[in-house]
């Protein structure tokens, strides 16, 4: 997989979530995503960014425009140094939330993207990497 361009966005407050969403929108349009795919990627980025903020205490998102030769896509990597997730399977279950949200953010965004990787260590932080192909 080759990276065509990349940008790092800090996620420190609610306004950063909006900024990231706008950036993801601009990049999705640049990649000529369909309107549905644009909206899916924007929504996933919004969910994951808010998780980074609310549960991870803030972090950053690395945006990458990637290509695997045949297709191009958008890869987002969210990283925080928060408390981490003790039970990833449980966190990915619909309706499970440690906060007071709907408990659909993580599981829902998994369904909105093509590739979803999550790695977390308790006490060290969480790293989520998602890709949506054109």
């Amino acid at each position: 997989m080759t990276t065509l361009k990349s940008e790092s966005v800090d996620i420190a407050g609610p306004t950063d979530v909006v900024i990231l969403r706008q950036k993801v929108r601009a990049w999705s349009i640049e990649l000529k995503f369909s309107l549905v795919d644009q909206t899916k990627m924007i929504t996933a980025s919004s969910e994951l960014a808010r998780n980074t903020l609310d549960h991870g205490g803030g972090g950053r998102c690395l945006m990458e425009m990637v290509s695997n030769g045949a297709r191009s896509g958008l890869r987002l990597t969210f990283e925080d140094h928060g408390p981490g997730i003790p039970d990833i399977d449980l966190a990915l279950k619909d309706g499970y939330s440690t906060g007071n949200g709907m408990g659909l953010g993580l599981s829902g965004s998994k369904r909105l993207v093509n590739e979803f990787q999550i790695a977390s260590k308790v006490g060290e932080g969480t790293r989520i990497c998602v890709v949506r192909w054109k």
Partner: protein
Amino acid sequence: MSKIAEILQKNESELLADWMKEQLTAVRRRDLMNDGELQAQSTDLLRSIASAARNGNVTDVSGSDWAGVRERLTDISASRAKQGFSPDETALFVFSLKQPLFTRLRNELAKDPNAMFAEMWNATVMVDRLGLMTFGAFLKAKEQLIAQQAEEMLELSTPVVKLWQGIVAIPLIGTLDSNRTQIVMESLLSTIVATNSKVAIIDITGVPAVDTLVAQHLLKTITAAKLMGAECILSGIRPQIAQTIVHLGINLNEVITKASLADALATALQKTGKTVVRIDKQNGKAGENKDGAEVKQTPERKGA
């Protein structure tokens, strides 16, 4: 009295002339400010710096002797921020005082390099601090401007409109964060009471993305309206939003949803016991004529 203060006092007019020349070459923006105004501003500032340097320590611009200078600088920066100057243009306004000041110091202290170095260092520290202060004040003024605009946007973007007797609608536009949802909820609920409405339409055509947080905010608003006896219809759900909601797994089964505001209004009229029928233009009676339409109270739901 320090050498700087002495120079500032003795050579005021020369300094001012040189400073003006510096400014004219470095940062002149005739489109934003005329020369007379700039001259007046510069003179005023230079005089207050001179008097502060005379009474106080030139390297301690946060002291009480410098209060007048700080106030003037803050005013100048704030007004420039509003006029549309860029931050570096505003900072250069102060920094351009350096060269004229240094030239004078060099002339005065040419025979004593040590004293010249010491005074130049003092002058650098003074101008730098003043410049930073200008920059800080400029940013603060800009931030205030942004905060004020954000506030105005909040107010602007949440009007509740009465569509018919007993039917209100709130067209939502932009990002729904917690602040805005709070305002939306408040204005919707108070309008429901004020207009004694039974149906409220929440239109999200102008909301770019519906994630779980937005959905949760919407559901809370709908529940609150329900508690007050009003039914909510969610309209303006575009195809891409519908697909995203399905993938996210958000359950909106409990809510009446419509693709367009027109559909929502038709449903709302129905719910309040009214229907839209075509009228005959000549005799005003309901009929098959396509020339017009009017809303009629349907008999079976009357008084319900």
